């Protein structure tokens, strides 16, 4: 597929190098801080589970108790495992219950031997948790071998969003039977701002279903049954973004989710979560995804709903490059990078379709080994569902012509409702028609040298480089504060969840990071 735009490889390399320089200071911040959710994820991997009678998870109670006694800067592992040994309570969930009742006090042991002993036990527990993640990954590999991958690219990605996991399951199974390769369960509104992960099977979400460990398990089990029935491994997706990215990643790894929405800036821009909190959480969560063999989906498509898709096309490229750098730095491989982009140009503009093709092909050629995630029109969808179906057809055609990896199926009723069963069926029919009739058209499609598409792609790349140069000079945090992405202005000193961030002390210890970076 490479080489259709005649991009200068030196310019592409320069863009990548600039992204590394722009991103590195943020990585440095991420490496020197921790958050309540990072620490809770450590405890989840160490086996703490369940919630109190108010539905507050024991990991929250335990982290809060440790924090009240010694702060977060040492990491919770040493104080928790030291207290476990000192009180003789080996089961950490029981320890959390006692701590919540005020019956345990935490401290950082002064004796070196005690610290070493606590670290050793923490390391062992974390390793046990990661073993579950490893087993799940091996299980996925086995099942894919047994049932097989989808026969075509792009993989067909469909959303279910009833709010009730027991409604979602039959809908997801029906969607898979109708041709979906990937099922995403959208989360309830408001979940991304909860500073805890709800527990148990849930039936009462708004415009989506709560992401819980039990809901993950139920849906994965149901899709395993369907995979067997269809002879095709059906992948399951959920959302990491929000205040609990690290824990979502840990739970997804332990329940064999296959993809996670994990954008480095989505929470900042679209949920007003504090930038530092997000970057710290994001790095840890991506390290866990890397280990779990999970494919991440980034969220550049969203910028084009608040900013203009032509004017801001280069911000998508810049963000993809940053997402790629952050992902590589966290240990993810190219096959795990579902970098996002979208068909969001105003259809009333002259040449809108040619520009869409140029942008999509640009992403394809800059990231030849990433399974790009191609997102459908949403912003310019209206109540005119007939026109919407036509736009979705053209969107599908761009997907086929430019070799996209994952195609999120667009719904003609996008502006009206969360999808009805018939919307999904009509949308899949649209995708099938295009892939069947034009799936190999990319073999014949080469934009003319010096033509509109090549020029436009090169122009966007040029603008991306200019913007990256500015970001390197001003810092990424400043760029985010200035509204560079999606026109949302998010200063590093503001936003939700900042109080859950702490600087790492010299003796900070995190057995999971240690294992993941080994």
């Amino acid at each position, binding site marked *: 597929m490479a080489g259709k735009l005649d991009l200068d490889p030196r310019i592409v390399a320069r863009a990548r190098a600039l992204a590394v320089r722009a991103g590195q200071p943020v990585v440095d911040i991420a490496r020197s801080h921790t958050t309540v959710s990072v620490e809770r994820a450590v405890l989840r991997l160490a086996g703490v589970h369940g919630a109190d009678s108010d539905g507050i998870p024991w990991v929250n109670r335990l982290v809060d108790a440790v924090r009240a006694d010694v702060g977060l800067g040492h990491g919770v592992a040493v104080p928790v495992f030291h207290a476990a040994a000192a009180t003789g309570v080996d089961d950490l969930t029981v320890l959390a219950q006692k701590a919540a009742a005020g019956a345990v006090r935490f401290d950082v042991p002064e004796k070196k031997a005690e610290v070493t002993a606590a670290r050793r036990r923490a390391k062992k527990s974390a390793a046990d948790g990661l073993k579950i993640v490893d087993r799940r990954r091996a299980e996925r590999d086995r099942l894919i071998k047994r049932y097989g991958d989808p026969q075509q690219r792009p993989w067909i990605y469909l959303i279910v969003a009833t709010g009730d996991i027991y409604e979602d399951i039959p809908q997801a199974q029906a969607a898979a039977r*109708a041709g979906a390769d990937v099922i995403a369960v959208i989360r309830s*509104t*408001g979940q991304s701002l909860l500073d805890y992960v709800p527990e148990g099977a849930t039936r009462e979400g*708004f*415009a989506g279903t709560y992401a819980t460990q039990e809901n993950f398990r139920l849906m994965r089990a149901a899709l395993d049954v369907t995979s067997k029935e269809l002879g095709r491994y059906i992948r399951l997706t959920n959302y990491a973004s929000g205040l609990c990215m690290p824990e979502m990643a840990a739970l997804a790894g332990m329940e064999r989710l296959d993809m996670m929405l994990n954008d480095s800036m989505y929470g900042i821009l679209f949920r*007003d979560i504090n930038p530092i909190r997000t970057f710290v959480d994001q790095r840890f969560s991506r390290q866990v995804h890397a280990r779990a063999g999970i494919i991440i989906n980034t969220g550049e498509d969203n910028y084009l709903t608040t900013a203009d898709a032509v004017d801001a096309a280069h911000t998508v490229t810049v963000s993809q490059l940053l997402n790629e750098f952050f992902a590589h730095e966290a240990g993810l491989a190219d096959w795990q990078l579902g970098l996002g982009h979208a068909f969001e140009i105003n259809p009333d503009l002259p040449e809108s379709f040619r520009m869409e093709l140029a942008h999509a092909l640009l992403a394809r050629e800059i990231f030849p080994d990433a399974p790009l995630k191609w997102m459908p029109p949403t912003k310019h969808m209206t109540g005119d569902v007939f026109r919407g179906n036509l736009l979705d057809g053209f969107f599908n055609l761009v997907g086929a012509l430019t070799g996209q990896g994952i195609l999120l199926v667009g719904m003609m009723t996008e502006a009206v409702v969360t999808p009805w069963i018939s919307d999904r*069926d009509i949308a899949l029919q649209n995708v099938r028609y295009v892939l069947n009739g034009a799936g190999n058209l990319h073999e014949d499609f080469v934009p003319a040298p010096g033509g509109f598409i090549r020029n436009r792609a090169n122009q966007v790349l040029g603008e991306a480089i200019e913007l990256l140069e500015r970001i390197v000079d001003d810092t990424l945090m400043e760029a985010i504060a200035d509204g560079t992405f999606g026109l949302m202005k998010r200063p590093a000193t503001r936003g939700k969840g900042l109080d859950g961030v702490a600087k790492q002390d010299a003796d900070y210890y995190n057995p999971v990071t240690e294992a993941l970076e080994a």
Partner: protein
Amino acid sequence: MSIVRPYGDTTGDGMVQLSFTLPIPHDKRAEGAAIQLANKMGMDPALLVHAKPMGDGFTFFVVYGKVSHLVDTEKVQIVERDFPLLSAKEVNAVIKRKLRRRLNVVGACIGTDAHTVGIDAILNLKGIAGEKGLEYYAELSVTNMGAQVSVPELVETAREQKADAVLVSQVVTQRDAHLHNTRAMSAAFREALPAGKRPLLIVGGPRFDELMTADLGVDRIFTRGTTPREVASYLVHALIGSKA
């Protein structure tokens, strides 16, 4: 002419099209059931032109047919714009002359709804459809609280800012979230402030019914395609009286 019927290709033919799903597998009985529904909805004759099985036990139908209902355009209930549409200059002039201070507006998208594009279109300088938002009006003082704002926060800010008007946006409508949130908001203002001190309450969003003001406890509802100028003109009309 105040009596009309749907138009297919001939005046008075009454032709409409309808699509829906029934939760039954596709067979002759299912097709009959679809026609029965169409008949009960007033389509007679009803012509079933498409039936397609979906998944286990669902069938999608498209039905064309003639309806006998007559529509009287005189009897339609709508909220007509009952205020003059002013230019930004006129809005500023009225406020300056009659209110003699800036008019305070507080806006937010409340509840767990994170959609800001609609309220920003009305409030932010950038505006929408070629019109600048309320921030552009020199005599309006605008506080845009953004999205996912809780009702208590909104009431508090409205009080602090001495808001003359509160503008609330609601886009997510699943399980009637927009109606519940709006009722909670108007109730909170009624509780927090006595009648004379309460700001003008305005809600907007693409799926509101403009006729529901009394039910929701608000002064005005704006829906799809609203522009900032309409809102500014209404503010002046409702708070000051727009006779310039």
